[in-house]
């Protein structure tokens, strides 16, 4: 057959290719996914992950030769290479054979889960696992317990069900972020709960709801667990003791505020700077731009996907800021350089919104606008707009959280939003238009009887230092 004729036949066949059933109700599922994006906040203890999720699609992967060679030494590290590609700390750990093999498997209903490896130190445990079998209609979530089955007080991120059979996924568990455990324990129980995808049933996903019938206040039912995998993991003492600590105890001035640099701790899995603000400061520190440099000019990387800061319930300020580690560098000298960050001005922490007029008399933080409010009976919604971040484009949204989950009534009563959603045009008959250069976040709550609501804002302004503040570690 001539190429031209072959092309015409192929084009004809291509034009008649039917749409697969997997794409039925595609828009409805996209809407649900967008609206569900901010649900499920109960993971972990006191924790802040600032800007982590936005980096999910910005993967910069460098398969260096030493890394490829290291992958050759560990049997299934081809899959593991993809799992650690986002983290220079974990890549360095693999290059240095700093990996505890596990190899435990369990099979339930034809689905096999295997915990392959651990990369852990004094403050963090990274659990690498994979599934084999058909899990196309399933979703899952991890949970960490102690060996006796009691829930562990810790923070964790990641932990999704893999997209393809055999693909390795990872959950990162952090200790010492305000939870009861300050260090990695000798053992833990790793549970993985399997459920139907999107509240579906064995017959498939539930049918789509037409646009006009969608109720943004409706709380999604928690799907019942089909079954739960359970792995008891012993954490090697040699790995658990790894970590270096440099005491600084040095007061510095950042953008007119006094900050005590307490310690820099360098673990194989991450590096953390602990600090504390002077109570007399007019702002709390919410994020910190910094890097570590050695005598060769080598600098560590920021964390692109994971926990970047942590704090306690006692203060809105963050007490520790994380970056990728320099643990395996073997440097003679290390210096800390602080270049900027983000404040929450103490007089801008709370903003009271009149739900009937959709207005506020309080000044809003820089880059945040109040789009309005909706009150339908006791259903309440507050629409906020945040200025988009660098890297945002007309086809890729980079968003961050604008307000806290806790809010307060005029009598001081404490409430909590049910969900924070994005992509909502119309709520209770009211229409909202996101201004150019901003993204929208809508905070929703049911059962709220009052006409005013006080929000807690999470940041107010960025600062960049003309000259970095430096401190010598060694």
């Amino acid at each position, binding site marked *: 057959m001539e*190429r*031209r004729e*072959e*092309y015409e036949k*192929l*084009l004809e066949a*291509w*034009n008649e*290719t039917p*749409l*697969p059933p*997997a*794409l039925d109700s*595609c*828009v*409805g*599922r*996209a*809407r649900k*996914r*967008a609206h569900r994006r901010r649900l499920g906040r109960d993971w972990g203890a006191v924790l802040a992950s600032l800007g982590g999720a936005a980096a999910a*699609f910005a*993967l910069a*992967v460098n*398969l260096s030769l030493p890394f*490829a060679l290291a992958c050759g030494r560990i049997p299934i590290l*081809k*899959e593991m*290479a*993809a799992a650690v*590609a986002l983290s220079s700390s974990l890549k360095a750990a693999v290059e240095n054979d700093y990996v505890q093999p596990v190899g435990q498997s369990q099979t339930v209903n034809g689905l096999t889960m295997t915990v392959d490896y651990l990369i852990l130190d004094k403050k963090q445990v990274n659990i690498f696992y994979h599934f084999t079998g058909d899990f196309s209609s399933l979703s899952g979530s991890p949970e960490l317990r102690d060996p006796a089955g009691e829930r562990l007080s810790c923070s964790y991120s990641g932990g999704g069900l893999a*997209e393809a059979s055999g693909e390795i996924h990872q959950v990162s568990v952090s200790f010492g972020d305000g939870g009861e455990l300050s260090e990695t324990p000798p053992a833990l129980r790793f549970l993985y709960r399997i459920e139907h995808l999107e509240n579906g049933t064995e017959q498939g996903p539930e049918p789509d709801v037409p*646009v*006009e019938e969608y109720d943004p206040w409706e709380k999604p039912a928690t799907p019942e667990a089909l079954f739960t995998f359970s792995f008891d993991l012993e954490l090697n003492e040699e790995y658990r003791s790894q970590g270096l600590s440099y005491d600084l105890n040095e007061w510095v001035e950042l953008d007119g505020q006094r900050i005590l640099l307490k310690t820099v701790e360098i673990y194989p899995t991450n590096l953390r700077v602990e600090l504390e603000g002077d109570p007399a400061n007019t702002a709390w520190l919410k994020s910190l731009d910094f890097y570590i440099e050695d005598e060769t000019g080598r600098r560590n990387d920021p964390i692109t996907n994971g926990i970047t800061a942590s704090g306690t319930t006692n203060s809105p300020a963050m007490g520790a800021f994380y970056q990728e580690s320099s643990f395996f560098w073997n440097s003679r000298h290390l210096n800390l350089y602080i270049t900027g960050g983000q404040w929450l001005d103490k007089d801008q922490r709370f903003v009271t919104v009149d739900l009937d007029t959709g207005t506020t008399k309080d000044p809003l933080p820089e880059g945040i606008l109040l789009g309005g409010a909706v009150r339908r009976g006791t259903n309440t919604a507050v629409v906020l707009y945040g200025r988009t971040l660098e890297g945002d484009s*007309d*086809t*890729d*949204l980079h968003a961050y959280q604008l307000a806290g989950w806790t809010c307060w009534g005029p009598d001081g009563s404490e409430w909590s939003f049910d969900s924070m959603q*994005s*992509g909502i*045009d*119309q709520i209770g008959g009211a229409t909202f*238009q*996101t201004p*150019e250069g901003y993204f*929208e976040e809508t905070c929703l709550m049911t059962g709220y009887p009052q006409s005013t609501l006080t929000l807690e804002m999470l940041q107010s302004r960025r600062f960049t230092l003309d000259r970095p503040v430096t401190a010598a570690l060694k």
Partner: protein
Amino acid sequence: MTLEEAEFAQRTEALQPRLYRTALLYLGGEAPAAEAVAETVYRGFLNRKKLRHPEFFSTWMTRILMNVCCDELRRRKRETAWEDLPEPAAEDYDPLPLRTAVERLPDEVRAVIVLRYFTGLTLAETAESLGIPPGTVSTRQRKGLALLRLDLEEEGF
């Protein structure tokens, strides 16, 4: 004027078959193509208010689709980086069935061929969808047609 949710749903539904077929030929395999379209619809839904000129909806969605497909191809390459084979020589394409030959084209050339000669985009729309200059589209389509030994009009097909 931005795109309301109902209009987004309506337009997406109409465009979905074309998006799926484009992804099918570009990525190969029904499952990755369906996943790419689902991801495209999701990103489109989230970003729909940024589309200031709804008349460019289909080009805009195609651009998102191509970004998603590129992410997927990068992910595949990341996992098989040390197994990459050199690009086949031009004569290697001759004995292949056309569909297989299209699938074996270098990624950036295949994207142009799929959009121009299967999806039916104009040269300008292809350039906009891929975020590259029209001249680059012309160069890549010439290379693709030559590799495929396919004698088609280069303009206005």
